[in-house]
């Protein structure tokens, strides 16, 4: 067994050298402000597994600037559909969706995201806002961003990319819906 595989199994808690508990299963002792994208120290030693804020990010990217791409719909009536084609900023890489609705008793709204240039659905079917998007307080980052330290964030077409956003109001009342994407414009892979 090569050392990389052994280290990986140890990281999972399997085999020799495995840690008893992963830090994510441990209670937080203080209400520390944690940036989940900061690099961690050691993957196998809890004592060393303190993240190093400011020492780099787990996302294999550097540079670029943070951008919030935002669309807001005119007030939608009950069960009505809104659709907008967004011109994206150049060299945009998606990190997370965010959204909110003025009425949110029955789920707020459903949303479908479609990359027009690549003809790719980024959501398999319309998704309830809570299960797709977070907000500033509770950001829900894309799984590919934090689920793997190898995966780069999704990059739209470099120039003139377009995304089709379709929302459906789930409420029996008129609803003011906001939906957006947070990501990085520019930057480079590392």
């Amino acid at each position, binding site marked *: 067994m090569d050392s990389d595989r052994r280290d990986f199994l140890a990281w999972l808690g399997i085999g020799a050298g495995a840690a008893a508990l992963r830090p994510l299963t441990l209670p937080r002792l203080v209400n520390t402000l944690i*940036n989940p994208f900061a690099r961690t120290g050691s993957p196998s030693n809890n004592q060393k597994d303190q993240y*190093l804020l400011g020492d780099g990010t787990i996302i294999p990217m550097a540079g670029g600037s943070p*951008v919030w791409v935002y669309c*807001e719909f005119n007030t939608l009536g009950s069960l009505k559909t809104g659709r907008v084609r967004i011109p994206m900023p150049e060299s945009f890489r998606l990190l997370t969706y965010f959204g*909110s609705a003025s009425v949110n008793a029955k789920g707020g709204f459903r949303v479908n995201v479609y990359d027009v240039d690549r003809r790719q659905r980024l959501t398999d079917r319309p998704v309830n806002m809570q299960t797709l998007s977070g907000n*500033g307080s509770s950001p829900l980052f894309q799984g590919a961003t934090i689920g793997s330290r190898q995966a780069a964030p999704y990059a739209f077409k470099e120039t003139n990319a377009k995304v089709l956003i379709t929302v459906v109001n789930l409420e029996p009342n008129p609803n003011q819906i906001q939906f957006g994407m947070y990501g*990085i414009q520019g930057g480079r892979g590392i």
Partner: protein
Amino acid sequence: MATSPSAAATARGIVKIPRVLVVDAVVPLNTNQFPSVLTIPQDADFEWWFLAAFRTDSRMKVLITESATQRQMVYSGSQQSSSTVFNGVFIDNLAGLVASNGAFPIAVPYVMPATRAYQHAFTDSSGAQNTVQLVYHGFALLQVSQ
């Protein structure tokens, strides 16, 4: 575990000093694009890691523009009618409240050059005066002599 000097100084001649930059504004009721400026201190570039917010009412929108480059950090994707002005993103979609749930991680840190100004425009729709504070958490990239 204390951060070692070598970890703190990630590049030769640079030391990262924790720093917090603040934008304060008292926005009159129903005001469109009330301006407020954040100027990065001149002693060091600033590496931006977190954004946190305080506001007295969530019905407030924010626009952020980098002055030197005119880079819009909040980008309008909606097809507004010609009579509608884009006033930015709702503040609760932009950043979190540390008191309740925590700040918004910038994920890939952004370096703001020393002395550069960042224009903020706040739009209130709450119908009451709105006191707002945006807080940039990060590091001053302080150059030190060897």
